[in-house]
């Protein structure tokens, strides 16, 4: 039950993009086409899940027992950066199809604050190993959901008559505001 709450909460109620404001850069940058939004979302979900699997043991089995919590930020960012490199290499070697779909998005993920933010929040909330992984999958899918909805809306917006200075980021942010408003309706979904 707790796991379900964590999952739904990360997916909808406390959506990473629309309520925690993490991963805004790709949210604005990669949301102009539906197909690239789906790929980016999958890549983030994938990396986030692996991040969950790797960072939990690092913090709870290495840093915390030896009182090295102050290395949390340095070690997490280095681990995530090398993880992304490793995943990229692995995919390139194993599957041409997946690499074509996700390849170009992977390097962008290193600087996606949603990944590091997720790792830090999981530590802050003191989740167990399983909870952290569920949280990672939920957060990744939540990111994908927001990105895909946004891309769908933006594809339609191409045909709209938007004022010159609002074109691009301006209107995207305003639409995101309305989306966030809609997502607020999910609060109270679980009691």
């Amino acid at each position, binding site marked *: 039950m707790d796991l379900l*709450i964590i999952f739904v*909460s990360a997916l909808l*109620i*406390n959506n990473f993009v629309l309520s925690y404001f993490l991963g805004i850069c790709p949210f604005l940058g990669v949301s102009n086409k539906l197909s690239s939004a789906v790929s980016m979302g999958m890549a983030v979900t994938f990396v986030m899940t692996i991040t969950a699997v790797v960072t939990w043991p690092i913090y709870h089995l290495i840093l915390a027992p030896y009182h090295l*919590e*102050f*290395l949390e930020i*340095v070690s997490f960012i280095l681990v995530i950066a090398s993880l992304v490199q490793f995943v990229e290499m692995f995919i390139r070697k194993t599957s041409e199809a997946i690499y074509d779909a996700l390849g170009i998005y992977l390097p962008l993920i290193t600087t996606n604050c949603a990944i590091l933010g997720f790792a830090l929040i999981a530590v802050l909330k*003191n989740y167990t190993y399983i909870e952290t992984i569920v949280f990672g999958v939920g957060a990744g899918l939540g990111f994908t959901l927001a990105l895909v909805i946004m891309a769908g809306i933006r594809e339609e917006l191409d045909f709209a008559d938007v004022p010159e200075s609002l074109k691009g980021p301006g209107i995207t942010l305003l639409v995101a505001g309305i989306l966030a408003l809609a997502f607020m309706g999910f*609060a*109270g979904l*679980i*009691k």
Partner: protein
Amino acid sequence: MIFVLTLVAVISSGLLAYFAVYTQPYIEKNKKAEIEKAIKEVVPGTIESKVLKDENKFKIFAGYDKDGKLLGYAVYTVGTGFQDLITIMFGVDKHLEKMYRLEVLEQKETPGLGAKITDENIFLKFWKNKNIRGEIILAKPPKGESELKDNEVNAISGATISSRSVVTIVNKALKRVKEEVKNG
């Protein structure tokens, strides 16, 4: 190349270690002070406190007066609210019959609505000196302050779910604390 990177990493870890040692006592003091202040608030007259139970989301502290006499227990508990987790601390007497008062330590409820669970005049005033032999009950419909029974509290208008969450979290914790204290 590897050498330079290693050097950078070693220097930075050294610097951080030094800085961590320097800030650690302050950070710990802050953390402790926050909990201690809350204990003194919810169990009036507490001078010293002792940890009886220390879990991630559930803690019991015993509060003692200046002669070392047991005054009551402060209960720290975390539960799901409307939006995110709510962290609560409340104080009960040593016979587990009366709740002194309740404090909301952390919450992320909707500002202006659910967030009013931290407001003394709107919500917290109902939680003083409650009878906790049974459960706390949310009064339906809300009553005048003098008409509330000694185990009833009023909900915040417009934030019934947040109010009900607090009641549920407290009742759950009450049940636990009664068991824990009975079993020593």
